[in-house]
């Protein structure tokens, strides 16, 4: 059954330095700053808003920080995943040829591992956000839909895992393996660009981008699950309209299935990277 691969994959991911450092440590710091440092201006703005609207505004603020921090955390984690694959190509080629592990099983176990790992990471974030933001604002900002939050985290994790694999496998397929060292950071850069556009920007055609960009799909779904409220096109200006969460979910599912198919094809074609090609 080759289930030991699955068991050790989970174990090595949970105790991976990038999981502990980027996935948890860095994100906790970021969330702490959002709750206690960057919230100063927001707290001043609250003074000019009717008191009965405070809870809604605070929940929007909290869900915005939760969704963008989670996206940064997950996409930072994929840097480690990309490098893992890059440095283990010889092993992967060997085990797929000369052991009972088939390419489909290999991918299935890795995706299943992500299905467990990313929601687990998400739980740690929900607990921290709830603690930090409730304390900072003196209001109970608990997540409104925890099951949906877990599903949204799971979808986000799988998409980002498949994206990081695609980038690594494409560099190998194009005969430019060393490019991985640069391109592995692309998910984080894209996450920052797309999340900032949703936080502050508004331009013509933005509504379409927000509905088809997988990074914005992730932010919208996480924020929606956390707050239980409609998500504005621009977090900074709720009068711009709202995201259609159904369309956003279909879009993310489409991206995920497409990446999955391309990745399975590329892994079958993957060649081993010689240690001489690492540097």
């Amino acid at each position, binding site marked *: 059954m080759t289930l030991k*691969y699955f068991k050790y994959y989970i174990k090595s991911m949970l105790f991976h330095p990038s999981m502990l450092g980027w996935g948890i440590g860095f994100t906790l710091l970021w969330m702490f700053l959002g709750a206690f440092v960057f919230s100063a201006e927001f707290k001043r703005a609250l003074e000019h808003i009717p008191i009965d609207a405070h809870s809604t505004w605070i929940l929007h603020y909290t869900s915005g920080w939760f969704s963008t921090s989670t996206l940064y955390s997950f996409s930072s984690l994929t840097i480690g995943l990309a490098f893992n694959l890059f440095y*283990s190509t010889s092993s992967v*080629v060997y085990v797929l*040829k*000369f052991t009972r*592990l*088939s390419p489909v099983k290999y991918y299935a176990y890795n995706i299943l591992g992500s299905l467990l790992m990313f929601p687990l990471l998400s739980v740690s974030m929900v607990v921290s956000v709830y603690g930090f933001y409730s304390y900072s604002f003196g209001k109970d900002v608990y997540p409104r839909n925890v099951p949906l939050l877990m599903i949204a985290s799971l979808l986000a994790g799988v998409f980002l895992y498949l994206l990081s694999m695609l980038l690594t496998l494409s560099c190998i397929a194009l005969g430019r393996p060393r490019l991985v060292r640069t391109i592995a950071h692309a998910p984080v850069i894209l996450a920052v660009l797309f999340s900032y556009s949703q936080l502050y920007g508004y331009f013509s055609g933005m509504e379409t981008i927000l509905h088809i960009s997988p990074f914005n799909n992730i932010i919208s779904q996480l924020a929606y699950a956390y707050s239980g409220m409609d998500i504005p096109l621009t977090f900074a200006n709720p009068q711009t309209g709202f995201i259609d969460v159904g369309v956003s979910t279909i879009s993310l599912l489409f991206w995920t299935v497409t990446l999955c198919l391309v990745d399975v094809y590329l892994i079958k074609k993957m060649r*081993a990277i010689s240690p*001489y090609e690492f540097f």
Partner: protein
Amino acid sequence: MLEVRNLAVEYKKGKPVVNAVNLTLHKKEKVMLLGPNGSGKTTLMRAILGLVKYNGDIKIDGKSLERLRCELCVATNLDEVYYLLALNVKELTSLYMDLKGCDVKYCIELMEDFGLKDTFGKKLWQLSSGQKRLITNVLALASRPKMLLMDEVFEGVDPARKLTLANLFNQFGGSMLITTHELSMLKYFHHWGLYFMFEGKLFGKVNPSSKILDAGIVRGEDPNAILKVEAAGKVVSIVPKAGRPLREFVDLNMLYEELIIQ
């Protein structure tokens, strides 16, 4: 059965590391491949395992290497294939034995026999080159394949354990290709076939290898030669009971250095 035809491997265009290699390894046949460092032995091994891009044709049991999937018949000691996950030696053993469908107990016992118990809690990259080599040797042997491809099997290993390894290799029931630059180990494998490799080219086979135990090196072509090899632009003949005895060279690096210098 392994069939290699017109194999060529280049890491840089126009500079072949392995050139026009033809090799057949029959069922239960055992051969030793001797060559100095940098002669292309490891690259040949990597090509046979599909770890490097190559030109030519490689078949295992009649199936093209490129199409092979989930074949349990081959195992190797190349350490680069044992970095699938960041695991310690014991976990790594458990994982690879499971993937090969083999008994983990036997593998652990074999490692303990080699005095490797202290390494169980460590990662492969934290070990000395000798310990690493022994562990990958055992992982390959314990997976009970039909064919073993073993690279530089004695590198960094102490003399007592070299002898134990040689005994294990001789007892192994399948076909086997081992590479080494240690000419002095040849005496333990006297009934095996023998190839030489210089500058990416394969010379041989001498069968059995015991034929060259008393042979010597003669410069140029000699009509009584068992084998003629070309290295450093010179032709050298290996002739029975003539020339400078091969046993004077501890390893192939010494022989190659002498050919280059003179």
